[in-house]
């Protein structure tokens, strides 16, 4: 009972903090726009375009997460992405991350959901990294703008080093240190 209460106040505190951060940034933006009108157009344009980009996919991603938490069992995630999932888990994490599913800030809440369902830290690191820099549609753009040699070399090395990084972070961390 007491633990539950503690968790509740901790959660409220976190929400409170994020509202303060938003307030500070909002005021900062207004100040910058007022005192540096040259940059204001770019600031407003960039923020709006990111907001639109986010608004287009975020509701869908949240619903997907909701469906995921209701339909996919803990056992399923633990089997395919858990501590004992081995090489297969690594491959599943790379594929999940590389599927076309939107900007990076969508990936963090999804990773949180996967960890709560029992995914290993190694696989979460791989999932986030794959999401960030080897997404399938983006690789076609890389091919077009940077050429096949560059793309294949970067892809190959990213897969190798991201896997190593995942294993090292897993060793360094205790799972209950994550929210």
């Amino acid at each position, binding site marked *: 009972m007491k633990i539950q209460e503690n968790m509740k106040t901790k959660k409220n505190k976190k929400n409170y903090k994020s509202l303060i951060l938003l307030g500070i940034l909002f005021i900062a933006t207004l100040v910058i726009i007022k005192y540096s009108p040259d940059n204001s157009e770019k600031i407003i344009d960039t923020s709006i375009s990111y907001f639109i980009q986010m608004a287009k996919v975020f509701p869908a991603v949240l619903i997907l997460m909701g469906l995921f938490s209701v339909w996919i069992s803990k056992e399923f995630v633990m089997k395919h992405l858990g501590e004992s999932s081995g090489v297969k888990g690594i491959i599943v994490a790379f594929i999940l991350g590389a599927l076309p599913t939107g900007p990076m800030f969508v990936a963090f809440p999804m990773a949180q959901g996967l960890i709560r369902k029992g995914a290993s830290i190694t696989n979460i690191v791989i999932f986030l990294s794959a999401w960030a*820099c080897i997404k399938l549609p983006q690789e076609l753009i890389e091919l077009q703008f940077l050429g096949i040699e560059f793309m294949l070399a970067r892809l190959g090395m990213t897969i190798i080093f991201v896997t190593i990084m995942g294993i090292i972070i897993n060793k360094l961390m205790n799972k209950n240190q*994550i929210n």
Partner: protein
Amino acid sequence: MQNTTIIINGLVILLLIISFFKDQSKTIKSLKIAGRSLIKLAPTILSVILLIGIIYGLLSDKIALLFGQENGSAGFILIAVLGSVMHMPSLLAFPLAGSFLMEGASISSVAAFITTLTMIGIVTLPLEIQTLGKKFTIYRNVFSFLIAIIIAVLMGVIL
């Protein structure tokens, strides 16, 4: 991006319909979970959007300048740091990196820029800390920076 948007939303609507026919109460529960997550994450996400606007608005001219006179290992590290501070979807990062390559930037610096730009996000730190915790966030970002440098140097050697 447009296609991605259509695919994601189409897929989710399809799944939602399937879910609804299979089990109504489970589907409603999933929508409630989605709503709660939205309320919880909205302030942080709006903060990240404002931060991207401020950084991009204030610094984009200076970035072009830096790449124009890029040389030596100091410039290389600076570019990696810059890639970490800035945040850009890889869809935009690749064309930009391609243009730097055409202007004569080295393969290593372009590779470092892409990897840090997409994997490390100073601006998304608040969201990453909120969802995954401080320790994980620090480890992931520090190690990503290191492997970005390693990948970049190796690519310079290979290509």
